[in-house]
């Protein structure tokens, strides 16, 4: 199983690299889609088929496509020259350092206990639904509110140009 996992990791890193380095925004989105697909594969390897499927269904099939749409609606698709001043570089350094500060101790700490093997029954529709609506209810409801706000925002943005215009079909 080591070769497939190595390939997945390479795919993930390559996709992420395209996502951050591509000049063309669309290429960046497709790079992100590759990285997310590989992350889905990693979840599968780690024994979470449900999370892997959701990763593909929501992030690759949903979020990436939505991002492509957002890019299409914006003006500049490529050749955006924002300049790379030292302020931007310094700001970029903050999340990078913070990420490394969290991830390096986790990766180097071998004392972490592995998660217990889940029985097949844990993946049943009923078990997932029950967990979402009881133990994770607060998160679930918060996400609903965030999504509702996103929908309202989308409607507000989409409605603006139509003001003062006659309804034409």
């Amino acid at each position, binding site marked *: 199983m080591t070769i497939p996992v190595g390939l997945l990791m390479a795919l993930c890193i390559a996709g992420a690299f395209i996502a951050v380095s591509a000049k*063309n925004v*669309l*290429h960046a989105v*497709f790079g992100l*889609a590759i990285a997310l*697909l590989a992350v889905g594969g990693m979840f599968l390897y780690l024994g979470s*088929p*449900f999370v892997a*499927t*959701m990763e*593909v*269904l929501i992030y*690759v*099939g*949903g979020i*990436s*496509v939505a991002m*492509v*749409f957002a890019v*299409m609606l914006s003006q500049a698709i490529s050749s955006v020259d924002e300049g790379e001043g030292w302020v931007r570089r310094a700001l970029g350094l903050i999340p990078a350092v913070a990420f490394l500060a969290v991830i390096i101790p986790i990766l180097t700490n071998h004392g972490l206990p592995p998660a217990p093997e889940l029985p*097949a029954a844990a*993946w*049943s*529709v*009923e078990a997932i639904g029950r967990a979402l609506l009881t133990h994770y209810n607060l998160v679930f409801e918060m996400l609903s509110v965030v999504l509702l706000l996103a929908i309202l925002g989308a409607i507000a943005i989409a409605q603006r140009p139509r003001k003062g215009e006659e309804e034409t*079909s």
Partner: protein
Amino acid sequence: MSVTFEQLLGSPLLALLAGVAAVMGLLTVNALFLIYAERKVSARMQFRLGPTEVGFAGTLQTVADMLKLISKQIISPKHIDKPLYHLAPLVVFAPVIASTALFPFSEAWSIVDVNIGLVLVFAFGGIGIIGIFMGGWGSNNKYALLGAMRSVAQNISYEIPLLLSALSVVLMTQSMNLREITVAQGEAGFWFILVQPVAAVIYLIAAVAETNRAPFDIPEAESELIAGFHTEYSGMGFAMFFFAEYSNMLIVSMVGTVLFLGGWSGPGPAVLGPIWFLAKTYSIIFMMMWFRWTFPRLRFDQLMSFAWAIMIPVSIANLIATAVVLKVV
């Protein structure tokens, strides 16, 4: 009990190769057959003859067409987005192979048996949408881009009723395993189309839209967009899109068979399972062809409002009604 390739061949790698070979064989035969069938069905519905020359009653016409497409020079337009343009046919086609492997063709025949097969089929379907967009954008052509945008908007909209109608069945069986859904219908003694007629109709309509077929073939409406997102593809690039379209028809019809028509179940010994499964699948495909040659194409705004104003509310209502009935009974 089911026997997987891995148990049969003893090695995961061999099983993978055998599975891919089996799926590719099925998809190739399916595409050859469906293209021939589409020509004959359309010809019958329009009082024509269809292909008659090559082979017996024109049966080898598609093979001849394939040979022609393979030997064609590949012409790509100037100023295309090279990586996206060349990757698009593969991105559209690869998920199709993965989803086809998930179906139980009979009690004993399936390539892989996963607990969440149903969701996985829809998840792979989402990857194909990205491929369509890559092709439409990469072609550097207005018609292709318009076709791709229409296709993506349509696919996202119709994916919701598709999933919701499938969820009504999942609520009843409490399983997303395609095999268990089939078995549940055998235990219940009836096909789910009898208790879920609304979901079945919504599923069929949404499936036609998902496969970009008439009357929902607006992404490739010839009269306005030439050929939509694959306008600029020639030779095998074009053939791959075509191949993917016919394979997608097979996949949505197989899902429909599993969800609503009892999968492999039918009279006769269990050996006949795959035959029943394919017979049901191809009847759904025949209906989709029937739609294509008898309904006029919708306008794009009609298509979108139909999805959001009718399909989604009805499917949500159906889902809630299913939940209430299941709770009460």
